[in-house]
């Protein structure tokens, strides 16, 4: 019997054929942590550990509260820097380099066939490069620092087949939100999702990352997209040779717990209304919603293509009176490219506030925290109650096109509303 991607990668790592439900101990290629590394370090020492088992395993990126918003946050960062220096860890990126998930991709750590875990739920992102990657808890990251290994259960697999050609301005964010509305937030619980179909084959590398980033919002353990030339050439440009990894693909006769088929031509502008990602509505039904703040960026939609799309809408336009627009590039590399391409000029002339690369307002810790009764439209991945720092504020999730159009109109809007 053939194997799915996840069965194949776990079999390879285990050195024997494994089936869903098998629990095995694996040595991940990398373990990602961020500002939580200070707390993880405390657990690490609490475990009686003194030396990191494998210095090459930890990837540490400060991104959650950068630059530090308070003395407490600053001490937190300082603790991490001292730990990194003390242990002589080679893979450390200080605040400002970018959001961890973008940095891991840009730095070439995520590769086809990689096994990466991270103490951040959106670690699923790297599946767009054909890696297996999933989120873990802080204590587990400490455990890997101490012992180099972790137990994982081989999940069932689910195939989401996306065929067809999307309508103009419909992005992978709309597609993912459509899927969330259809299968719900637990629709892929404990499962490995394989995104496939002609839509995926034609999809840009950057838009693929949006899908796997949000696989966790469907409950999935990981998301996977078969790596192709787009991935190989992206890595090659970053100095990762084609023979530096082994791409793994599911067998054609693999068995899936469920197969969902969607014709993307039927998908409209989709918006996740408060307070769950699966509360998905057509944007046209929300046109009366006045919006105080728009956030374009984050690890979901803060890459150069996302910013180009936003700029396409915002060029020669102004942000509506009474609405604030925040731009949050996913990394300093994206930031620089946006600058070179003149996108930042478009945003600033439109009245936007361009933030430094980091997690920023997405988790409500600083930068753009909301007030009671306010409404944000965001290109991020979560709209839970209280997510942006206030439990009586509303968050709507949308694509960069919809978010940008909303900023111009001041109410939830789409590019179609700005035409003609």
């Amino acid at each position, binding site marked *: 019997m053939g194997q799915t991607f996840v069965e194949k990668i776990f079999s390879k790592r285990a050195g024997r054929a494994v089936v869903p439900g098998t629990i095995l101990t694996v040595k991940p290629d990398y373990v990602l942590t961020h500002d939580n590394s200070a707390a993880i370090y405390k657990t690490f020492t609490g475990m009686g*550990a003194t030396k990191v088992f494998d210095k090459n395993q930890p990837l540490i990126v400060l991104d*959650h509260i950068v630059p530090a918003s308070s003395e407490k946050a600053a001490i937190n960062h300082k603790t991490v820097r001292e730990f990194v220096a003390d242990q002589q860890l080679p893979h450390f990126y200080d605040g400002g380099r970018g959001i961890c998930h973008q940095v891991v991709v840009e730095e070439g750590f995520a590769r086809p066939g990689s096994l990466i875990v991270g103490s951040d*739920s959106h670690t699923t992102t790297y599946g767009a490069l054909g890696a297996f990657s999933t989120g873990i808890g802080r*204590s587990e990251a400490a455990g890997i620092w101490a012992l180099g290994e972790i137990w994982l259960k081989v999940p069932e697999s689910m195939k989401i087949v996306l065929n067809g050609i999307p309508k103009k301005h419909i992005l992978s964010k709309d597609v993912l939100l459509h899927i969330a509305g259809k299968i719900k937030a637990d629709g892929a619980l404990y499962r490995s999702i394989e995104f496939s179909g002609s839509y995926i084959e034609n999809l840009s590398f950057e838009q693929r990352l949006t899908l796997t980033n949000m696989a966790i919002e469907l*409950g999935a353990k990981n998301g996977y997209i078969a790596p192709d030339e787009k991935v190989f050439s992206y890595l090659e440009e970053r100095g990762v040779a084609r023979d530096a990894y082994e791409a793994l693909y599911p067998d054609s006769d693999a068995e899936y717990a469920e197969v969902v088929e969607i014709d993307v031509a039927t998908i409209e502008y989709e918006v996740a209304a408060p307070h769950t990602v699966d509360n998905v509505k057509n944007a046209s039904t929300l046109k009366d919603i006045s919006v105080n703040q728009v956030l374009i960026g984050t690890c979901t939609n803060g890459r150069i293509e996302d910013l180009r799309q936003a700029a396409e809408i915002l060029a020669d336009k102004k942000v509506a009176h009474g609405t604030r627009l925040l731009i949050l590039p996913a990394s300093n590399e994206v930031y620089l490219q946006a600058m070179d391409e003149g996108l930042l000029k478009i945003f600033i002339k439109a009245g936007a506030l361009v933030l430094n690369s980091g997690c920023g307002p997405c*988790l409500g810790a600083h930068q753009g925290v909301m007030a009671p009764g306010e409404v944000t439209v965001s290109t991020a991945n979560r709209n839970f109650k209280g997510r942006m720092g206030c*439990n009586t504020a509303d968050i709507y999730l949308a694509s960069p096109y919809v978010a940008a159009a909303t900023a111009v109109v001041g109410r939830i809007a789409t590019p179609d509303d700005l035409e003609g």
Partner: protein
Amino acid sequence: MAIIKGKVFVYGDDINTDVIFPGKYTYTVTDPDEIAQHAMEDEDPTFVKEVVAGDIIIAGKNFGCGSSREQAAFCFKYLNMGAIIAESYARIYYRNCINAGLPALEIKNLVARVKRGDIVEIDTEAGTVLLPNGDTISFPPLPPEVDQIMKEGGLTNYIKAKLSQ
């Protein structure tokens, strides 16, 4: 601890980690007692006032979905709660419960059979839950790899034991 007995708090589906432990506290609130005081803050502000050691949460599907933040599991451990019983869990959350040494049972269709304040008794050795009406529900044992972590009282102790071997 074979017997866990306590009053129950009942919640629905998709209780996420942001309402259990708001993200704005993840880097500002670090003391265990203080973490405990924010448990369920954006879902049920009365929860921390009423909860006592040994109490049990009974919830619907996808409990703990969202962030990987461990405080959302540890806040219940720091309150010395007895257990969580949910129809299903978000997987990182489930792991975090094991790592915290907090019993997390997966039992379907229980939400409709209990109400807030009911007393429920869990026998972890026998693998049974006793409801107020006398009904007994069985649940399967944990896989040995995971059970060992629970038996040590969580991942920190488990690794400490391993490192000292």
